[in-house]
């Protein structure tokens, strides 16, 4: 590319909330005024991942890493960029344990313990400029599949990479593609599920904001592989910046001949449109998502027939998550073996997590599947702040579970998490410390699922409400000893008799907290006491 120095300013939603837009504009202005613009390029990028320290500014090639940058700091940063200028050390990241200032991002354990592949270009390239994506090898997968591979070969490559979907079950992506390929129909659809409704997760948003072309390229590969001409990205309307950047990316891809009729002068046509989801957690379920696009209430239906056979408008439809598509260009470009070289025997590749809650370093991380929870929370996350002790980590959002300290050395993969009562899911990872009440957390999740239940299965609609009311009364000090058994019984019934994933997994937060933190329930019920001091229990006579 150029040998210019680069000043990368993060323009993700997190940093923008801290004033990153003004920082970017002021930096550009200042560099121009100082006459540095021949040697220095000020670039807007997507999310760097370390949102907690934002707004972030990175100077490359040195890798100088500035945190919590305010517009008032800009002049000083600009001056530091003159020849022999000294970096602004007061803006360096400080290690939360030692207080030591670390000047470069590769010296920070939050970054250097990660393995960033899906996120490799997030925070490096300008998401609104296709040329930046092209300069990192973008869209070469399209050329490769169109001119060197048959659709069957593409599917075989995806299949042998071992990549799995991010729903509760971790369904193998290659099998899904194969089924869509075999379905006979003139019309087929490719849908990207970007309805990231899990509270506590934002990785899909960051990928779409930071590297939208990687998602588009993956969808084009999928269209070619299954024989579809139309793609659709179903993205939450709550993510306006992601919508905007996807729209720009689609326009630019069209102009450059990667979308539209006769892609790269081949016989293959493919178009992508955006559908903005109007806000319903249940629409993350694929048949509900389809119903929503078709103009119904987003309610799931019975499977089979699976969408691969009869999906949108009754046609074969492939639905994958944002990160699954973002991985495809890498699998095509580097080969299935490269992808499968990381991860565990049955769970390949990397996983992206939103690491949040009571942990020193919050942000977006990418790690090889199979890493332990301890490494994520302590090495990358920097442990629990304020001298508090770890209590639990919640993965998988409202469908997942809370795991205790005794499981910290468990590898993070699809099967181990399922065994422990949680799921991989979309990748929320919320750390909880001694000040978090586990009964309150269970109550919180059931409050969420009770609101989000679509209402068509009675056990889910009324059962989640019932469970919420029991949990609510326990947190208020009105719990009865038999409530624990009642919660277990209701959990079993809801799990067994719900149609879709929302209901089937809704009891998980309760079941895991009962399994690992039963003593907290008992303290609330028997001693009318909240060990974490969260619940307002009024003692008799007070």
């Amino acid at each position, binding site marked *: 590319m150029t040998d210019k120095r680069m000043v990368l300013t993060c323009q993700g939603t997190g940093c923008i909330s801290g004033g990153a837009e003004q920082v970017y504009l002021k930096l550009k202005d200042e560099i121009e005024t100082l006459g540095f613009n021949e040697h220095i390029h000020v670039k807007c990028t997507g999310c760097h991942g370390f949102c907690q320290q934002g707004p972030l500014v990175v100077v490359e090639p040195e890798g100088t890493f500035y945190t919590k940058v305010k517009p008032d700091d800009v002049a000083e940063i600009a001056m530091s960029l003159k020849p022999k200028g000294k970096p602004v050390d007061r803006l360096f990241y400080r290690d939360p344990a030692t207080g030591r200032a670390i000047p470069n991002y590769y010296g920070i354990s939050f970054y250097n313990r990660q393995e960033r592949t899906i996120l490799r270009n997030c925070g490096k390239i300008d998401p609104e400029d296709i040329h930046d994506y092209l300069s990192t090898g973008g869209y070469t997968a399209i050329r490769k599949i169109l001119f060197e591979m048959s659709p069957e070969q593409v599917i075989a490559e995806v299949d042998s990479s071992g990549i799995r979907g991010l729903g509760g079950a971790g369904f193998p992506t290659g099998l899904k593609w194969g089924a869509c390929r075999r379905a006979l129909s003139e019309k087929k659809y490719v849908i990207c599920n970007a309805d990231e409704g899990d509270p506590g997760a934002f990785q899909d948003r960051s990928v779409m904001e930071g590297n939208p072309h990687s998602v588009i390229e993956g969808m084009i590969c999928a269209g070619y592989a299954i024989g579809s001409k139309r793609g659709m990205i179903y993205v939450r309307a709550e993510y306006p910046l992601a919508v905007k950047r996807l729209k720009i990316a689609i326009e630019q891809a069209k102009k450059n001949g990667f979308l539209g009729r006769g892609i790269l002068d081949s016989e293959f046509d493919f178009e992508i449109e955006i559908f903005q989801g109007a*806000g319903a957690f249940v629409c993350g379920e694929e048949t509900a998502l389809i119903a*929503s696009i078709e103009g119904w209430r987003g309610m799931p239906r019975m499977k089979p027939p699976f969408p691969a056979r009869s999906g949108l408008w009754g046609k074969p439809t492939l639905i994958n998550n944002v990160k699954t598509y973002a991985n495809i260009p890498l699998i095509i470009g580097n080969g299935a073996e490269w992808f499968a070289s990381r991860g565990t025997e049955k769970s390949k590749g990397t996983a992206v997590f939103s690491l949040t*809650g009571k942990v020193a370093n919050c942000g977006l991380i990418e790690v090889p599947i199979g890493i332990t929870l301890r490494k994520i929370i302590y090495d990358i996350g920097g442990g629990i702040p304020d001298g508090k002790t770890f209590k639990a980590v919640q993965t998988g959002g409202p469908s997942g579970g809370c795991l205790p300290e005794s499981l910290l050395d468990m590898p993070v993969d699809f099967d181990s998490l399922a065994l422990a009562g949680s799921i991989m899911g979309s990748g929320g990872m919320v750390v909880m410390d001694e000040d978090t009440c586990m009964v309150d957390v269970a109550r*919180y999740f059931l409050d969420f699922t009770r609101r989000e239940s679509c209402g068509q299965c009675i056990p889910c609609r009324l059962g989640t409400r019932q469970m919420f009311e029991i949990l609510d009364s326990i947190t208020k000090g009105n719990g009865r000893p038999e409530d624990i058994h009642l919660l277990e019984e209701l959990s079993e019934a809801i799990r067994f008799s719900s149609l879709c994933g929302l209901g089937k997994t809704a009891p998980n937060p309760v079941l895991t907290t009962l399994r690992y933190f039963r003593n907290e329930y008992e303290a609330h019920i028997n001693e009318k006491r909240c060990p974490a001091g969260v619940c307002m229990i009024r003692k008799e006579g007070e």
Partner: protein
Amino acid sequence: MEERILRDILVHYRGNRGELVPILQEVQESLGYLPEKAMLDVAKFIGVSESHVYAVASFYAQFRLLPLGKKRVAVCRGTACHIRGAPQILSTVERTIGLKEGETSDDLEYTLETVACIGCCALAPCIRVNKDVSGEMTPEKAEELFPSAYRGVQDD
């Protein structure tokens, strides 16, 4: 006025059922909410029953059937926000602007809502006012988001 806006929106659509959600989104974007009359006209335009449009409009969290305040205050109740004190933030805001979750002030200045997740979890707890997100909230910072003149009192 409303009818003209609606007409201008509908000319861009063909009247397929699959356009229902996008049309309702555009109507709400222009009018701020979904007036009953607009929903009736949309039903006619798409050729579905009025109850179908109401069923869809009432299903999704995005749609509002009543006028909204000029400033839409959304307190995030995502998981990360919850364990870092979102319930206290919500009660502070409720007290400060004198509204309960879901309510709009009589002078149409504020609407108070909660949202499932804004997606700024690393900066929890967060509040969004219209399109601006503020992170790492404390009850004190939350109070400062609102002019002291506005404590349930008219603000001009």
